[in-house]
């Protein structure tokens, strides 16, 4: 059985114009490569840590979601054996943390109520 790892996390939000959210493992590995893990689109990237020879390792450095305010393809998220912990919050699985961040950011950015209703 795969062991669940708990990681400290930070969030970068580029604002509604860029609409890109990135979760970073903290401290973030110095070198990583973005892996497009989206099965159908180019919306979900996993940052995979690299070793000193720039070869990919098993370590995860982050996750990037393009079009985050509208994102609703939760089933397409990678199944990472990790719990992500933001400072002051309980550790959460990736999907739960992203849903919480999306709710907060939709409120902050005044995401249209009509679209929020249809996304529920």
């Amino acid at each position, binding site marked *: 059985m795969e062991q669940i790892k708990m990681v400290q996390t*930070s*969030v*970068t*939000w*580029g*604002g509604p*114009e*860029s*609409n*890109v*959210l*990135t979760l*970073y493992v903290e*401290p*973030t590995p*110095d*070198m*990583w*490569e*973005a*892996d*497009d893990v989206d099965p*159908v*689109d*180019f*919306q979900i*990237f996993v940052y995979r840590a690299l070793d000193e020879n720039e070869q990919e390792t098993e370590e995860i450095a982050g996750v*990037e979601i*393009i*079009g985050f305010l*509208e994102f609703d393809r939760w089933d397409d998220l990678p199944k990472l054996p990790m719990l992500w912990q*933001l*400072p*002051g919050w309980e550790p959460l699985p990736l999907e739960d943390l992203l849903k919480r*961040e999306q709710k*907060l*950011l939709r*409120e*902050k950015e005044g995401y249209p109520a009509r679209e929020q209703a249809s996304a529920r």
Partner: protein
Amino acid sequence: MDASKEAESPKERIERLIREGKITREAVGPAEKLWEERLQYGVIIPNGERITIRLDDLYHVIVDHRIWRKPQRIEQMLLGIFEIRTGREGRRIALSRWGEQVDVSLYGSIVLESDSGIRSLHVVDDKRIRREMKKGVLLWNR
């Protein structure tokens, strides 16, 4: 809790990484200079489209060590686009190849918005590029 208090902007992240000694200010300076001198006016990619790069986009893409160490790769990557494919909601993926040494190609993928802005830009390996070439519908190639 206010989301704005826990989410950093890309610029705030860069500033924190500088404070923590992960990136030097000297490394970020050339990227900002490149943006001021050229990137802010847009880059015309091989299909003739002018791609716009906001300052916030710059801070987002230079968190990748392969970009902040060589920010000129942003422009090289855009000029090296050889294929553009469809994504959802008007987004497109541009695949790029360029060289910095004889006989060595580097590859990149760029997520473009319908308004010609960039959303993401990464240096990737050739295996990933081949995988991207199977997604979406081909819009343009050279």
